[in-house]
């Protein structure tokens, strides 16, 4: 046996270094012993601890953390727990059970694509873009009960069970990002049209949301459609249901309807101006405007 292997074997059997088998350096121990042996009381050469006279004797020294040019509470770096919290995007939760109830009571039309505007138009949810609500998140409560075949577009989905519950019935889900100007317009269309502004062009998602909206597992609106088809199949196999054929569906046109990434309403394009009184739409004809609103 080589010496190296022998020493390695020895190392393996030796006890590990731990708190119970370590000692201080001998110099430290020696020093402590010397200090301990100092004469005290009347034999002491000098006063131990607080000297006579001065701040130490009168106990008027500054309290802990003070006494230096920068006090302790400023010297220690800080990390606020809620820093940047007021800038986060909020998504109002809406469950599958709530969606099903709205469909049952005729508040949502399952034969048309459902989006943010349709849910806001029920006027049953406290949706407020001024509170940084960027849309709705679909939760999986009532996934077993859900029976409708819908084409729904929400802004956030966290559980894949939600996606599975919709796709099991032959429906379709997409997650889409809207910037705050578009959300303001979509949450109250009548108010927006009467304000006399052209329909806004939807912005691109911010840096921390790009990964979410480009992934096919989340059914993001910027994901590759071929990958989404693959993910649909994968999810069907994972949860054990047969994926209904979209090609043979009578509602195929409705289910395959998707918006342009820059578009916020079906059938209407950014840059158009809606006149509610005369029931007329004004479209820009200038080259510059057309190019500005082009996606």
């Amino acid at each position, binding site marked *: 046996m080589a010496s190296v292997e022998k020493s390695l074997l020895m190392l393996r059997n030796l006890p590990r270094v731990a708190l119970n088998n370590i000692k201080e350096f001998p110099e430290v121990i020696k020093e402590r012993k010397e200090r301990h042996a100092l004469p005290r009381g009347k034999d002491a050469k000098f006063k131990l601890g607080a000297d006579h006279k001065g701040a130490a004797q009168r106990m008027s020294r500054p309290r802990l953390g003070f006494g230096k040019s920068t006090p302790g509470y400023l010297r220690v770096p800080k990390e606020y727990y809620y820093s940047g919290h007021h800038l986060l995007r909020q998504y109002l939760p809406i469950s599958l059970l709530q969606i099903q109830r709205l469909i049952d009571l005729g*508040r949502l039309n399952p034969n048309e694509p459902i989006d943010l505007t349709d849910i*806001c138009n*029920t006027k049953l949810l406290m949706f407020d873009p001024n509170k940084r609500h960027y849309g709705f998140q679909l939760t999986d409560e009532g996934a077993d*009960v859900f029976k409708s075949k819908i084409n729904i577009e929400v802004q956030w989905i966290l559980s894949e069970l939600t996606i599975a519950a919709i796709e099991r019935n032959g429906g379709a889900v997409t997650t889409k990002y809207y910037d705050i100007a578009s959300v303001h317009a979509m949450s109250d269309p009548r108010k927006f049209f009467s304000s006399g502004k052209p329909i806004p062009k939807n912005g691109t998602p911010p840096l921390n949301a790009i990964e979410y909206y480009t992934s096919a597992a989340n059914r993001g609106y910027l994901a590759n459609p071929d990958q989404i088809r693959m993910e649909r199949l994968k999810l069907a196999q994972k949860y054990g249901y047969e994926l209904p054929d979209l090609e043979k569906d009578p509602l195929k046109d409705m289910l395959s309807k998707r918006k342009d990434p820059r578009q916020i*309403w079906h*059938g209407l394009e950014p840059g158009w101006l809606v006149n509610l009184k005369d029931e007329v739409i004004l479209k*820009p004809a200038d080259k510059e405007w057309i190019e500005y609103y082009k996606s």
Partner: protein
Amino acid sequence: MHRYLIKLNKLNATMVNPSVLVAYSSNFSKLSERKPLPSRPINLEGHEFTSVTESKEEFKYVKKLLPSLVVPDPPEHDFYPTPSGWVPPNNEKCSKFPYFVLRTRFHNFPIYALEREGGSRKLVKIKRIEGDIWKFDEDLRNYVEKCIEKNEDKKLTIYSQVNEVQRQVMVKGHYQDYISKFLIECGF
């Protein structure tokens, strides 16, 4: 100070010429004819507007976006209860009882689960009761007691409070599931 002012006024009175007064009044007349603010494009020529094309075809998409001002009637379903558990009122069943519970304008039961004293008192309020409210209260309590005995293996007495003026009943304990079951069985 007053003296100085009086002196100055006297000086002004002596110094004012009729020509100055005319100029002053003409300035006033100019001020009254104020022009509109420059930000208002009222005097813009036709060629300065951006050109647009009008169309009425796409307005059908706008009509879809405008919310209905009334809560619509629920559509007819093939079977009840619906997937979400909603049941329409049954007129045949509910005609047997001397009391009646109206639906809310959202076609739901007027049952509200409440918490008082920081969550230590749990209550359920039932509103919009018509007819013999005392009989309704008695039947409801008996039904909930039976349900608890059947489902939870417990013998409990249910306490309730009848508000005859406001046509409401307050039940102690969060038994909203059993109460809604009772209302469905009555056909309200």
